[in-house]
């Protein structure tokens, strides 16, 4: 916790974070002594070739995984020292996830998908229905609340996933290749939505993408190569 007179700790801080999968001869280094700082309200794109450690970094950022060495501080808390349960509590308090494959529950309506995180937070039915409908409206899916994923286009499904990730009002939205399965037109819709969430609701957005066109929507672009940060610079949009 910040003491008087000191500036609040950064939202996200990697200090020499390494991640190695496996041991001995089979050991695969995925991240190699990464230092990184991301502040509140940023919109960051992470780029880099396949296997460069982007998803590994995202999993650690999202408290789904812990570093092999080095420290990761989220709002000043050393995540590597937390047990599974505390990390789960941290996740559901501050983080929202969007995945490449949408990951909606099949045969479950859009509004029920969006309500899901609120159910696990023990919210009363009427209240969570209200919040879920609001979140769906913000992603432009009014009138589609009762459709199941099978009845929605890829772009609409991803918007349901974004509504689900933001209905809990998270501090950070983590999106690993959110447009990877979408065509250009739908990808642009999603990027505009993320920009709006970042600007209007102040949600910090961290997004992995392979496409420079999509990365251009971010204000900062970090490029990974072989588990290291190769470059870290403001985007043209920010400039």
């Amino acid at each position: 916790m910040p003491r008087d007179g000191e500036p609040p700790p950064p939202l996200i801080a990697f200090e020499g974070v390494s991640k190695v999968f496996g041991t001995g001869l089979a050991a695969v280094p995925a991240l190699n002594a990464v230092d990184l700082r991301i502040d509140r309200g940023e919109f960051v794109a992470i780029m880099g070739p396949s296997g460069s450690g982007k998803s590994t970094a995202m999993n650690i950022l999202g408290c789904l995984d812990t570093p092999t060495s080095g420290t990761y501080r989220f709002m000043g808390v050393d995540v590597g020292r937390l047990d599974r349960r505390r990390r789960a509590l941290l996740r559901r308090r501050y983080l929202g996830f969007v995945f490449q494959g949408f990951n909606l529950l099949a045969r479950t309506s859009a509004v029920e998908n969006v309500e899901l995180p609120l159910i696990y937070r023990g919210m009363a039915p009427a209240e969570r229905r209200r919040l879920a409908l609001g979140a769906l409206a913000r992603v432009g899916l009014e009138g589609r609340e009762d459709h199941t994923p099978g009845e929605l286009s890829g772009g609409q499904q991803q918007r349901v996933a974004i509504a689900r990730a933001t209905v809990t009002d998270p501090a950070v939205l983590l999106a690993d290749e959110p447009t990877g399965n979408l065509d250009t037109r739908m990808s642009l819709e999603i990027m505009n939505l993320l920009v709006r969430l970042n600007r209007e609701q102040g949600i910090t957005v961290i997004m992995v993408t392979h496409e420079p066109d999509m990365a251009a929507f971010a204000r900062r672009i970090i490029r990974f190569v072989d588990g290291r940060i190769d470059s870290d610079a403001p985007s043209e949009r920010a400039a």
Partner: protein
Amino acid sequence: MLLEAVKLALQAIRRNALRSFLTVLGIIIGVGAVIAMVTVGNGTTARITADLAKLGTNLLFVLPGQVGPGRASSDARSFNSRDIEAMRAQLRGVQAVAPIAQKSVAVIYGTENRNTVVTGTDSAYFVAQDWALARGRGFFEGEERAGRAACVIGQTVREKLFGSADPIGQDIRVHNVSCEVIGLLEAKGQSSFGTDLDDTVLMPIRAFQRRIAGNMDIMRVYVSARNGVDTAKVQTDIERLLRERRNITTGKEDDFSVRDMKQVVQATAGATAVLTGLLGAVAAVSLLVGGIGIMNIMLVSVTERTREIGIRLAIGALEEQVLLQFLVEAMVLSLFGGIIGILLGLGLAVLATAALNVPFLVDPFIILVAFGFSAMVGVVFGYVPARRAAHLDPIQALRHE
């Protein structure tokens, strides 16, 4: 949260309705068997207890030969009227000694015809069986000695032959012997062995022997002890007397047997209890198998739904919430089986009790136990799969396809 878990469980079960049903078949059979057995057992016990009270506990049967496994009784000598006289004269603490000779013959009245067991006996029969007359009278001593063909009929015979007409004073034909109906017995219902006690015709034994049986044999003797007299003592007295009369020397086996009605009924009750216990064990095994079935299908379900579990864990489900969800699902599944099993068991018991003619007595306690037991099976066998689901690594689970 629990409510949500139940809702989710119902959804998951509905999505795989057939598989769910097959999964709980073991539980259904197990619980159904327990409920049916216990309910029928309760009815039987109640029936036997009631019969014991109806019979009085003081009746002894005397039969020729030895009954039991590996013993031939057909060649044993029957009894005769002098045996009866001796028993009446010499036994102490005895209320009635009734000779019995029986034959199944056709009984005819007008155009109605019925095969019935006709019993030759005398007025001691009514005392020994504690059987009162609804109408008319019993046998006069004169009739007994003269061998006059008068008869007393049971309610079933009256109903079949006379319908609603009054049988007293009418002549019926019993095995071609014309015979006046002088009395009508009160209804007695069925015995513990399911025979209709009211399907009977009684006639003086002398007349029966001469005109129907064609011999002077007495096939059985009923002896009823006075109230408060020890039936075991009467039994040994009868044995001593008959050994003497039948010239059985010391060291030789009796060629007759004396059985205490109380023991017969208790033996039947004991056999019922053993049978109930055995079937209970079978039911327990069935429940165990049912539980393993649930565990198996839940493990399959966890594997199938790995991705779904990953999503739930990633968007904020805590381990214990996933654990609870799968535990509840297993429990709801086995409770379903339990409830269907209870209904099935009660249904079977209704049919079985009707067929055995015993009362249908539901024990609410055993229903509660069956309910609790099936819930427990769900928790016990659902725990391992639920724990596996809760401990999944969300990253791996999300990557699962």
